[in-house]
């Protein structure tokens, strides 16, 4: 069966692990638990009648003390840049990480994920900033690992973009 590796990239506590857990097991936990190293899961998705196994690499989040090791991204067919909509600095971190990822593995499909849309009243990211990224040709999607909003669509969308390549 066709298999593709995709990586979850972003600042710490943006919800990368929660998005994977919601997608793979339909479970959400309110308790924040940090990721050390990388956690690998897989799930089969059906795209236009074809089965594709997504190998999901949930990388530890980047913080002031720990940079994401780009070696984890080797062989990745695509990646998800995860942002916590309630923390403006996580968008800056995502933009910085995107450059580093592209320098390492080249241009592969990616999606900017604006997570925690269930508390959009607390958001610090303005529509103007999102529009600017869309104008650059980026794909953005709003998700909530808590409610499940946009999660299935997110992985389906990335899977399709990978298959189109």
């Amino acid at each position: 069966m066709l298999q593709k590796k995709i990586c979850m990239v972003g600042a710490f506590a943006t919800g990368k692990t929660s998005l994977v857990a919601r997608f793979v097991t339909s479970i959400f936990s309110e308790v924040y638990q940090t990721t050390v190293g990388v956690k690998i899961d897989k799930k089969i998705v059906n795209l236009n009648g074809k089965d594709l196994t997504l190998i999901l690499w949930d990388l530890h989040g980047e913080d002031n003390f720990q940079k994401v090791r780009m070696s984890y991204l080797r062989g990745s067919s695509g990646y998800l840049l995860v942002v916590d909509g309630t923390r403006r600095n996580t968008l800056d971190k995502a933009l910085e990480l995107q450059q580093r990822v592209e320098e390492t593995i080249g241009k592969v499909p990616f999606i900017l994920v604006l997570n925690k849309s269930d508390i959009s009243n607390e958001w610090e990211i303005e529509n103007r900033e999102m529009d600017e990224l869309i104008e650059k040709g980026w794909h953005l999607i709003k998700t909530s690992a808590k409610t499940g909003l946009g999660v299935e669509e997110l992985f389906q969308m990335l899977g399709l973009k990978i298959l189109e390549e």
Partner: protein
Amino acid sequence: MLNFPEPVVNYLLNLMLENRSLAYLLIAKDGCLADWGGKLTAYGVMNLQKGQNIGQQLFFLEGLLPLDNFPLFLACVKTEQGFCADLHIFPSVQGDWVLLLDASLDETQRSLIQQQANNSSLLHEKITKVLNQ
């Protein structure tokens, strides 16, 4: 081969085997499994098939191989079965070698520190946000 006395080398090897569950895989350049050994069951790895594609047998290796003549180190790789390993991958004429070393203890210790640090950072961000309002 080494500038170390045999008892030292043997001691170190036993240490790796007993404390860190040393295991290895040899993957041919066509991506098929050529050989394996060591404590692979400690990582939940079993029923391997020689000559079959490794990515289909061990999904965490999908996309990583073959190497471009440079070694690769991946720390604290955790699979769905919950095993945590440091992966050392290096090339040779026979193919690419994958060494697995148990990293559960390291992960547990780092996780405690990392959790505290991240919780503190989140709290700091929240306080700053409130003060700026």
